[in-house]
C-alpha cells in the first residue's frame, strides 16, 4: 500500500518531447513506472521513452486510460496544461514546473478543487512509491520500500532525508514533495490525512521550511487527527526576514512564517522535530519503538 501512486498508476507525461520531459520520462520508465503516453501539441505519432505521443490530453486519456499526469512544460504554459489535464478527467496531476505566477495559480487552484481533482505542486519534485511508481524528478535509487510516509516542501533536502532514512533501514511507503510555491495544490494537511488513512504507513516525516503557515495548520491537524508518530524538520532557522530563500514561498513576511514558530507549533502537537536532517531516522526509530 501507499498513497496516490502505485503499480496501478498509468502515467501521462505532458511536455514529453521537451528536454526535461523526455529525460525524466526515460528515468521514470527505467524506474519501472508505467508511462502510458505523452502529450506535446503537434507531437502525435512520435514515441518517447517507449510511450506514444498525443496532441491533446483528451486524446491521450481516450487512447491510454491514463489516470495520473505529470507536467514538464514551461511556466507560462503550465496553467493551461493543468486545466487541460483536469478538464480531461485526470484525477491526479503533478506539476513540476517552477516559476508560475501566483496570480495564475489562484484560479487554477480553485478550478482543480471545484473539479474534484488533486494537484501536486507546482514547483515540486513529484512523488514516489518505492518499487512501484516514480512520478517526479527525484533520484529513484535512494528510496526503499518501507513504512515511512514522507511529505516535504523541498526537493534536494527531501532526498537528503530519504537517503538518511534508507541508510538507516527505514524504507518509505510514499515520499511526496508538495512544492515550494505560495499557492500549491496539495498541502501538508492533505498529505497527512492520506498517510493517516494508509495502512502501509506506520510513521510520518514532515519537512517544512519558512514562509506561510502550512506547518502550523499541519500541527493543528496532527493534534486532532493523526494517531501515527510524526517526526519533523524545518529548514530556515537562520533565514532573515523579508527575503525569499529560493522558493517563491519561502519568505518570512510581516514577522510571521519563521522556523521557530513552526517548530514550536509542531512540538506542541507532539511532533519530534529534528535539528538536523540526520537526526530524523533516529527520532523516527525512537517514535516507532514506542
Amino acid at each position, binding site marked *: 500500500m501507499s498513497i496516490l501512486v502505485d503499480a496501478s498508476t498509468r502515467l501521462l507525461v505532458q511536455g514529453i518531447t521537451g528536454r526535461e520531459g523526455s*529525460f525524466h520520462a526515460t528515468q521514470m520508465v527505467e524506474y519501472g513506472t508505467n508511462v502510458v503516453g505523452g502529450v506535446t501539441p503537434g507531437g502525435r505519432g512520435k514515441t518517447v521513452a517507449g510511450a506514444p505521443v498525443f496532441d491533446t490530453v483528451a486524446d491521450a486519456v481516450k487512447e491510454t486510460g491514463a489516470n495520473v499526469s505529470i507536467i514538464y512544460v514551461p*511556466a*507560462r504554459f503550465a496553467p493551461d496544461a493543468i486545466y487541460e489535464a483536469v478538464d480531461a478527467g485526470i484525477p491526479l496531476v503533478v506539476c513540476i514546473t517552477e*516559476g*508560475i*505566477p*501566483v*496570480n*495564475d*495559480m*489562484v*484560479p487554477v*487552484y*480553485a478550478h482543480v478543487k471545484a473539479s474534484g481533482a488533486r494537484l501536486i505542486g507546482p514547483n515540486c519534485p513529484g512523488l514516489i512509491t518505492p518499487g512501484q511508481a516514480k512520478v517526479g*524528478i*527525484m*533520484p529513484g*535509487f*535512494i528510496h526503499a520500500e518501507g513504512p515511512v510516509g514522507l511529505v*516535504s*516542501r*523541498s*526537493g*534536494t*533536502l*527531501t*532526498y*537528503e532525508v530519504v*537517503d538518511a532514512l534508507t541508510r538507516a533501514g527505514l524504507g518509505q511507503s510514499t515520499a511526496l514533495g508538495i512544492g*515550494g510555491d*505560495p*499557492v500549491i495544490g496539495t498541502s501538508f494537511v492533505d498529505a497527512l490525512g492520506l498517510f493517516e488513512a494508509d495502512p502501509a504507513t506506520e510513521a510520518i516525516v514532515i*519537512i517544512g*521550511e519558512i514562509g*506561510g*503557515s*502550512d506547518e502550523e*495548520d499541519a500541527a493543528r491537524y496532527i493534534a486532532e487527527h493523526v494517531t501515527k508518530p510524526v517526526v519533523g*524538520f524545518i*529548514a*530556515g*532557522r*537562520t*533565514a*532573515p526576514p523579508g*527575503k*525569499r*530563500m*529560493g*522558493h*517563491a*514561498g*519561502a519568505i518570512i513576511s*510581516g*514577522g510571521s512564517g519563521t*522556523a521557530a514558530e513552526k517548530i514550536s507549533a509542531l512540538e506542541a502537537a507532539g511532533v519530534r522535530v529534528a*535539528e*538536523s*536532517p*540526520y537526526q530524523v531516522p533516529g527520532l523516527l526509530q525512537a517514535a516507532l519503538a514506542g
Partner: protein
Amino acid sequence: MNVHEYQAAEVLAAHGIPVNAGQVATTPDEAERIARDLGSGVVAIKAQVHTGGRGKAGGIKLARSPQEARDAAAAILGMDIRGHTVRKVLVVPGADIAQEFYLGVVLDRPNRRTLVMASGEGGVDIEEVARERPERIHRQLADPVLGLHAYQARQLGFALGLPADKVNGFAAIAQRLYATYAAEDASLAEINPLVLTGAGDWLALDAKMSFDDNALFRHPSIEALRDPDEENATELEARRGGISFVKLDGDIGCIVNGAGLAMATMDAVKLHGGEPANFLDVGGGASADQVARAFGLVTADPAVRAILINIFGGITRGDVVAQGIREALGRVNVAVPIVVRLSGTNAEEGRRLLAEAGLTAVDTMDEAAAQVVRSAVA
C-alpha cells in the same frame, strides 16, 4: 520586486486611484524648486527607500517654505535607513487629513486566494494592528476568478463605519486597488494611509507595492521601475545567472543545490557555531558554469573566510559535479578554504576526484559544516 513609494503611486494613479501628486528630487535644490512650484502651504519631504520605518528614522519631514524643504531634503538625502542609503526624496503637498485608513491587497496563503484588508487604524504599522487588535482589521477574500465584487468592497466600507455617502467612493478605490494588484501581478498593494480629506475627498497618501518576480516577464513597464541602487549588486548578478542568492552577515560562504537544502545547510553551519555569509541555490544541474558563477558570487564578499559546497547528487552524477567544481576552480581564483560535501549518485568517485584536486571532500552535511567552521576560524 520592490518599488519606491512614488513609483507605486504612479502605478495606482494609472489605475484610477487618486494619489497625492508630487515630484522626486535627488538634490536639495530640486526639492526647493518643487516646493516652490507646488505653491504656498506645507509640503512633505519623504525618503524613497525600499524599507519601512522611514518615519521613525527621520526620513519624513514637513516643510513650511521652499527654504525649509531644501533643508529637509538636505537632511534626508544621504541618510542611511536600515542599511538603505537615501538617494531620492519625494516632495508632495501637505494634505488636509480628516480621517486615516489602511487598505491593502495581498495573497492569503492558507486560503489560496487574494485578500483585501481595510482598517480604521490608518497611518500606523498594520502588522502591529494585526497582532494586537486583529478585530480592527476587516477582511474580504476576493473570488479566485471574478475578483473583488462590488458588494465586498462596500462591505469593507460599511465595516469601517463610513457614512453612507462615503461608502461608494471607498468601494471604488478598494476595487481599483484589487484590480491594480491583479492586472500588474503584484504580491502586495497597500495604501497606508488612505485619507478622507477635510473636503470629503479620498486620497492615497502613501503607497507601497511589490511584484511577483515570476510574472515580470509580462510586465515590462513594471520591470522598468527596478532601481538598481536599491538592490544588492551580487543578488542582481545571481538572478541573471539563474542562481538564487541572498546576502547574509556571516563569514561562511555556501554553495548548495536546492533551496530547502541551502537553508538546511545554513542552519547546519549555525548549529556548528558558524555564521553563514549567504544563501545560495545553484539550481538543479550544478554544472561547471553554474559552480564557477557561484564561486564568483560568494568570493565577491570580503567577509567570506571559508566556503562550503553542499551537493546532493540525485539525477546529476557526483563525478560530473566534481568535474564541474574542478573546472570552475580552474577558472575562478578562490583564496579561502573550501569544504565540499558530495553525496548521492557516484559520490565516492566524485570525492576521489576532488581529493585529487586538493579539496576536502566529505560525505555528510553535518561533517562538512563542522569542518568548514573549523577552517574559517583557523
